[in-house]
C-alpha cells in the first residue's frame, strides 16, 4: 500500500493526523477482515485436497490439518488408485461424452434459432419468442417424469444420447434468449448490405452473424458446458450404470461417506479440475456466462 504520510503535515496537523491514523487503521481492519474471509473461502476445498493426499487410515483417525505437520505422509496414491478404478474412469469419460455434445448441440441449435428470431420475418415470431423467454425458468423437475416415459418408449432411457437430448432441450431457452439478444444488436445496415450483395441467409449466418456473435457464443458455451458437466439430477434419472457420469458415480459412494473418503476426495478433485481449469482459462467469458445465465 502506498500510504500518504506526507499529506498530513506534522506541524499544524494534530487533528488531521488523528483522522489520517483512523483512516489507516480502518483500512487495515478492512484488509485484515477480507484476508480472513478469503482464507475462510479457500479452507474447505484446501482441506479436502490435503485429505485426498493422505492415506485412508490417517483420514479415519485425524483431521486433514494434521497432514500439514507430517508432509511425508502425503502422496498421490489415492489418485493413481482412482485412475486404476475402471468404474470411475469410465464415468469420467461419460461426463465428457455427455458434456461436449450437449454444449455443441445447444450452441448450434440456439444460434440458428437466435438468428431467425432476430433477423428473419415470419408470422408469430414475437409470440413464439415470448414463450421461449417464459421457458427460461421452467424447472427441469416438470420434465423428468414425462420425458423418462417418452425415452423409455423409444429406447433412449438410460443412454448417453438420452441424457444429452434432455440437457439440450432444457439448455435451449436460455441459449436462444442470449444469442437472439446479442444477434439483434448487429447493425441492420451490415446485414442489409450483405443481403443486397446476394448472400443467402445461410451464408450470412455463417460468414457474418457467427463471427460477430463470438463473445456471446463463448460465454454461452462455457456456461452450458459447466451446467452439464456439474449436473447430477438429470443423469441420476436418465443414465443407467453404463452411462453414468462422474457426479452420479461418486454420489453412489456417499452412503458410506467415512469409509469411502479415499475414493470420494480424489474423485471430487477429478470432477472439479476441468471446470476450474475452464474458469481460469476463460475468466471473463466465464463470469459473463454465469451472470447472463442468472436469469435462468
Amino acid at each position, binding site marked *: 500500500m502506498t500510504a500518504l504520510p506526507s499529506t498530513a503535515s506534522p506541524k499544524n496537523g494534530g487533528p488531521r493526523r488523528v483522522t489520517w491514523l483512523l483512516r489507516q487503521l480502518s483500512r487495515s481492519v478492512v484488509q485484515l477482515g477480507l484476508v480472513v474471509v478469503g482464507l475462510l473461502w479457500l479452507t*474447505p476445498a484446501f482441506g479436502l485436497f490435503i485429505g485426498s493426499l493422505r492415506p485412508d487410515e490417517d483420514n479415519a483417525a485425524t483431521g486433514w490439518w494434521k497432514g500439514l505437520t507430517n508432509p511425508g505422509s502425503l502422496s498421490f496414491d489415492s489418485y493413481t488408485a482412482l485412475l486404476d478404478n475402471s468404474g470411475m474412469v469410465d464415468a469420467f469419460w461419460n461426463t465428457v461424452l455427455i458434456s461436449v455434445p450437449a454444449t455443441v448441440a445447444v450452441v448450434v*441449435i440456439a444460434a440458428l434459432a437466435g438468428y431467425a428470431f432476430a433477423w428473419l420475418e415470419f408470422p408469430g415470431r414475437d409470440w413464439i419468442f415470448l414463450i421461449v423467454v417464459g421457458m427460461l425458468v421452467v*424447472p427441469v423437475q416438470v420434465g*423428468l417424469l414425462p420425458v423418462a416415459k417418452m425415452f423409455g418408449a423409444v429406447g433412449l432411457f438410460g443412454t448417453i444420447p438420452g441424457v444429452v437430448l434432455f440437457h439440450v432441450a432444457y439448455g435451449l431457452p436460455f441459449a436462444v434468449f442470449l444469442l437472439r439478444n446479442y444477434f439483434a444488436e448487429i447493425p441492420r445496415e451490415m446485414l442489409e448490405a450483405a443481403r443486397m450483395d446476394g448472400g443467402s441467409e445461410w451464408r450470412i*449466418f455463417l460468414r457474418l452473424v457467427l463471427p460477430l456473435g463470438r463473445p456471446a457464443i463463448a460465454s454461452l458455451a462455457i456456461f452450458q458446458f459447466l451446467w452439464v458437466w456439474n449436473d447430477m439430477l438429470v443423469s441420476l434419472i436418465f443414465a443407467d450404470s453404463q452411462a453414468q457420469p462422474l457426479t452420479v458415480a461418486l454420489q453412489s459412494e456417499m*452412503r458410506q461417506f467415512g469409509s469411502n473418503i479415499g475414493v470420494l476426495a480424489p474423485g471430487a478433485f477429478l470432477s472439479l479440475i476441468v471446470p476450474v481449469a475452464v474458469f481460469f482459462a476463460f475468466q471473463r467469458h466465464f463470469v459473463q456466462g454465469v451472470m447472463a445465465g442468472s436469469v435462468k
Partner: protein
Amino acid sequence: MPATTVQAPARPAPQPGGAGPGAGDHRNSPRRRAARRRRLIALLFLLPALLLLGALVAYPILFTVGRSLFDASGTRFVGVENYAEMFRDPATLKAIRNTTIWVVVAPLLLTGLGLILAVLTEKIRWATAFKLVLFMPMAISFLAAGIIFRVVYEQDPDRGVLNAVAVGVHNAFDDSAGYPTARPKDSTALAKGSDGSYTTKDKASPGNTVNLGLVGVPPKDLPKDAKPAHKAAAVKPGGSELRGVAWVDFTLGGGGKSGQVDPKEKGLPKLVVEAVDSHGKAVAETTTASDGSYSFGKLPAGDYSLRLPAKNFAEPYGGVEWLGPALITPAIIGAYLWIWTGFALVLIGAGLSAMPRDVIEAAKIDGANEWQIFRRITVPLLAPVLGVVFVTQVINVMKVFDLVFVIAPGPVQQDANVLALQMWLVSFGGGNNQGLGSALGVLLLLLVVPAMIFNIRRFRRSQS
C-alpha cells in the same frame, strides 16, 4: 469481419434455404413466392429448436399437469386429491417448510453478504484476486461442494475442522477437565446426589484434611500434567484451612492400598470442589492443582461437607452436531452461501463501479460519513442490482436439490427435505407415486411463474 466477405465463401456451404418451393408454381406472383421462401427458410432455421422445446419442454409441462390429476398408478382420475395429499403427507409438509426456510433465509443472507463484501472490496487493491477466490466455487459441482462440506461438518472434532475450532474455542473459555466415567472408590464416603454430584458423608472442619478417592478414570482422560498426589496429601493444613487431594485411588499394575494415597497414584487436576455448610449451601469453590490438591484457606469455623459438582463428570464438549436433525438445513445453507456469495459479490461489485462517482464525492464534501453514504446513497442506487441478485436466488433456492441430497446423511435426509428432493423421492427414489410426484412438479412450476412473468415483462420493456 467485414460484411463484404459474405459473398466469397471459401467452400461451398450447404444451403438448407436453397430448396425452395417447386419451380413450376405459376399461380403465385414472384413476390409472394419470395415471401413463402423466406418463411420456409425461417422455419428451417427454427426447426431443431422448436422440435426439441416442443417435445421435451412444452409437451411435458402439459403432461405433468394432466398426470397430477391421476392416482399413483395413473389409472384413476382423482382430481385435486394429489394436491390435497401434499399438505397432509408429513414428509411433503416438512419439505414445504424447509423450502420456505430456504427462500426466506438464503437469498437475504446472500444479498446482504454480497453487498457488504462488495463495498469493502472497493477499498482494497487486490479486489480482483479476492473476487476470484470467492467466485471459484461457482465452477465446481454441487456434488464436489457437498463432499467438501461433509468433511467440514464432520462431527468428530478430531476430524471435522469446524468442530475442531468449536472445541478449541470452547475449551479456551472453559478450563475444567471432564471425567465422565469417574466414580468414588468408596461410595459410603462419597454419596451420589440426584444431580450427578458427589458429596462427602462425614463432616469436616477447618484444620482437617479430606482426601477424595475416585476410580474409573482411564489414563487417556487424565491430563498429561497430572502429578502423583501423595506428597500433597501429606501436607498439614493450617488452622483455618480445609484441604486435601482428589486422586485416582488405583495403582496401575496393582499394589496400591484402597483409601490410601499411594506413591504412584496420580492426582485429578482441574476438578471443581465445593465446601458446603450445614444448610446445604456452597460457601466456597476451588479447583484442584495438577497434583490433585485443593485447599480452602479461610473458612469460618463450622462443619462442612465437600462436594464434587456434576459438571466434573459431564461428557467433554464434542462440538456442534452440524449434520444432526436440528441444524442440517442451516448447515446446508452455509455450504450454499460458500458457492454463491462470489456471484452476488461480482454482480453487486459491477453495479458499484457503474455508480456515478460525483454523487458520492458531493456527499463527502457535504460532510457525510461512510455509514451515511452507504445507507443513503449506495444502497438506494444499487437497489435494481440487489433486486436482480435477490430474485435470482429466490428462483435458485426453490429448485435446490443436489446439495441437500449430497450433504444430508441418510438418517437425517427427511429433516433436510426440500420440494425438489421430495419430488425426486416420491417419483423415482422409491416412492413410486407419479401422481403426487407430478403434483409436486406442478407446484415447483407454479412457484416460478412470478419469475416467468417478471422475465417476460422485463424483456418486453427492453424491446419497446
